[in-house]
């Protein structure tokens, strides 16, 4: 996969959402604050590859997905799509470029217009990109498309509310496929679905990719979905990449303490592993004033003074040169399995349910 040509290359991309100051704050000369949703992220997605983006709410994963699909304009940085910088495209050129990247959203109810019939919904991208097609032609193309997502063509005239959550997500998928894009951004595509339905959709995603060879950017907090769909995984924490590498490397040999913590925190449906659990203390800090140095320093069990001052850079760790992690102590912690972290918890400072000064965790989206 790594030998495939690069489709999207993201270089040091940033997205800040400025906060409005109140009049008193302006008069007192408070600095302009911004939510630093994405703060200097670089990675690439190759042709036909699927990259998983894992992170908790506030990690900036959704913002990153919106930046790559250009629903947001980046504050700084470049988005090279097949060599062309699309970071600041506008107007007609932006709309024409959109046929390359399509998005599947999380909310299966909200992402389909309740007053449109199936064929209108699915054909919307076609109509936007190829104006002038007749109704019969559009219906024919939608009818051809529906079986690829596992739906029957008879449903053309139904409304979205007549479908279950899984069926709606298939419609979203069909809409995204309709233009044969080069990249599909999947924003939490299965998190609103039940386990049994989730497996159907994930199978469908993998089958479609091997058939049509498009690239996926799978944004989710669901590690098991990423494990099945992704070739490579990037772990985001507070708007920065903590770790990136092939899916097997990252999930089986997590290096960054946050990745370890995240994997250890997953509830596993295995009754024999009930006690072997580790939790990291503290809440996710706010994105308005992220901690200096390493973003994870406030919660990390391995924190040293250097972490609180100097920001760690992504660097290659271990045998695999494509496995990168941003941790000063990566070499020291690389061999510590997530499960064994439990013992370390007691030796550290008393666990506090809230990190100092961070009780005001804003709802900055996720």
């Amino acid at each position: 996969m790594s030998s495939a040509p690069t489709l999207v290359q993201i270089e040091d991309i940033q997205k800040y959402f400025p906060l409005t100051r109140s009049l008193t704050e302006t008069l007192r000369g408070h600095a302009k604050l911004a939510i630093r949703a994405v703060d200097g992220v670089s990675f690439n997605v190759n042709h036909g590859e699927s990259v998983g983006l894992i992170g908790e709410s506030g990690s900036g994963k959704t913002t990153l997905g919106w930046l790559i699909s250009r629903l947001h304009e980046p504050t700084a940085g470049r988005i090279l799509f097949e060599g062309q910088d699309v970071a600041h495209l506008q107007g007609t050129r932006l709309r024409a470029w959109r046929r390359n990247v399509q998005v599947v959203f999380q909310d299966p109810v909200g992402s389909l217009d309740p007053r449109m019939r199936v064929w209108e919904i699915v054909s919307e991208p076609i109509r936007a990109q190829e104006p002038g097609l007749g109704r019969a032609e559009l219906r024919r193309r939608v009818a051809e498309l529906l079986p690829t997502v596992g739906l029957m063509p008879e449903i053309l005239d139904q409304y979205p509310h007549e479908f279950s959550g899984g069926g709606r997500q298939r419609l979203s998928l069909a809409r995204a496929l309709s233009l044969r894009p080069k990249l599909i951004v999947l924003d939490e595509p299965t998190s609103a679905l039940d386990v049994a339905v989730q497996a159907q959709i994930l199978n469908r995603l993998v089958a479609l990719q091997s058939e049509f060879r498009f690239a996926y950017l799978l944004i989710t907090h669901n590690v098991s979905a990423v494990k099945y769909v992704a070739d490579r995984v990037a772990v985001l924490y507070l708007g920065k990449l903590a770790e990136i590498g092939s899916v097997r490397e990252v999930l089986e040999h997590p290096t960054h303490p946050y990745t370890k913590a995240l994997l250890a925190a997953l509830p596993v449906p295995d009754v024999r592993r009930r006690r072997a659990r580790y939790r990291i203390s503290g809440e996710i800090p706010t994105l308005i004033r992220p901690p200096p140095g390493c973003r994870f320093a406030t919660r990390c069990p391995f924190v040293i003074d250097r972490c609180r001052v100097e920001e760690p850079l992504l660097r290659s760790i271990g045998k695999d040169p494509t496995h990168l992690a941003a941790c000063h102590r990566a070499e020291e912690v690389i061999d510590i399995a997530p499960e064994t972290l439990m013992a370390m918890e007691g030796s550290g400072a008393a666990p506090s349910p809230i990190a100092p000064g961070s009780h005001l965790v804003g709802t900055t989206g996720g």
Partner: protein
Amino acid sequence: MVTAAAPATKAAARAGVAARPRGALKANVFLILRILAANPLTLVGFILVVLVSLTAFLIVAVPAVSLLAIGRSVSILPYPALDVGAFPIFQGPSLVHLFGTDQSGADVFSNVMAALPTDLGIGFAVAGVSLIIGSLLGLVAGFYDTPGTLSAGASVAILRVTDIFLSFPTLVLALAITAAWGRGEIQSELAVIVTWWPFYVRLTRGEVLSIKVQPYVIAARAAGVSESRILFRHVVRNLLEPLIVYFSLDVGTVIVTYSTISYVGVGVPPSIPEWGNLMFSYQDYLLSAPWTVLSVTAAIFITVLAFSLLGDGLRDILDPRSRRIMSTTAAATPAAERP
């Protein structure tokens, strides 16, 4: 329905692709009737609105048509309206005079009915013009508000002007305007419209603001749909339902407000039968001849009630999601996964 087991036959597929199944319209009408039947109050409102509108139409149309057809004006009203001295005064309700007669000897039933087209027309006209002005301004103010653009400036201007109008009490402002412009049907209607449209701006803008952040609008944008098409295909389409519902409730409110203005004496001239006017002329006889006042009250009450009931019911009929509950169609199950 689509089931996991049923293979899609080519014929069925073609039938599905070619067009909407024939009889879809019939099925829709059937569905609406079923919804009406399931909500008896909506049905009552619906029937009342049809009856009231039909009566108003006939009252206006029959004399005009008969004049053309047979050269003689025939009215469906039993007696001419506001006919002073036609009958003995203050007769109680009887079969001859359903609502009795008033202080001038005119038949109250004919008076009340003759006022129906006027009041209904005013209701529709005022609410309709307000709807058009207000919703267009609200659409602009809600949809184009990206900070730093020219249209955002226009949006802010619209909102501030709306706020100024909203800060006046509706009735007082309308009275003041009619008093300034002079008594007359057009003037008084314009006065009500001037105070009425800001509500539609508020309503429309609020709806637009909530619709335009819906994931389906974002999805359309991500698909490359232009902003103007998003505005019409998604925003306006989802806006119609709350506007129609509000409009149908509003017709009744306008009728009440307008009657108030006429009652105070600045609406239509007293020579035109209108419920506010009638109320004014009957107000002294509430105790001595209660049928006069009560007839007008009943007319206003029934008309306003009809539109309220209909408005509530329309909400159910217009929303495809609520049709689901009524419709017997099962949820479309996705076809089984084929490996």
